[in-house]
């Protein structure tokens, strides 16, 4: 086999990269904002499953009736995008 040492080094670097915390992004929403937005959505009949930050917007995973929604809100809790 050609340069197994070289291949092993590459694999070790790969393993080290995988172990790095960058693998899991931290996208927590501020608790106060979370509570406010959850209340707002609940009032509209949504079952709020999850809230996270995504590209500077607050992304809400919500269910209403038999439909799934991914809703995006700005810092004023105004709906700016629907979809996913």
């Amino acid at each position, binding site marked *: *086999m050609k340069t*197994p040492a070289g*291949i*092993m080094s590459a694999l070790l670097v790969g393993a080290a990269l*995988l172990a790095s915390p960058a693998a899991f992004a931290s996208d927590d929403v501020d608790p106060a904002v979370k509570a406010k937005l959850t209340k707002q959505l609940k009032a509209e009949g949504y079952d709020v499953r*999850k809230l996270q930050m995504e590209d500077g917007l607050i992304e809400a995973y919500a*269910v209403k009736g*038999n439909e799934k929604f991914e809703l995006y809100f700005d810092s004023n809790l105004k709906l700016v995008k629907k979809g996913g």
Partner: protein
Amino acid sequence: MTRRIYVWDLFVRLFHWSLVTLFVANAFFTDPEKALHQWLGYAIAGLVALRIVWGFIGTRHARFSDFLPTPSAAFGQVRDIVHARQNAHAGHSPLGALMIYNLLLTIIGICLTGYMMTTLAYFGEEWVEEAHEILVTWAEISVLLHVAAVVIESGRLRVNLIKSMVVGYKELRTESGLQPKR
């Protein structure tokens, strides 16, 4: 002297490299929030389903019965390695078999948790998403180990294992005292 034996049939080889491509695509390139990621996930699930069927009706070394995960065989292979004995296996080695079962089960878990996230019941559920991500990380670690083992065993046994997964044939050495196992 080497003996050239046909080990990996066309489906096994196509399955292996398709899985590599699709897994890499979904782990590193497709956007998990977009439809393509899901479609590739379903494709992986379909491939694995076909491989499982093939494991029961396929060619000799593709069948699960050819590489059942027995602890005694696995320990035997470890002893061979420790004592520098070169007993190259025709099909999956015992440790190789364990890795394959590990990868298959892990990928099934990834597909299952991925599918769950599309259902009304589990949409947005944190634990399902975390399970999905943990399984993917475990799969990535397993893949690195798998590649390392293939490289090391190829060197140790003087058999080009990567090439055999491309062309299907293994060139096993048949010098005295180095009989290929099965």
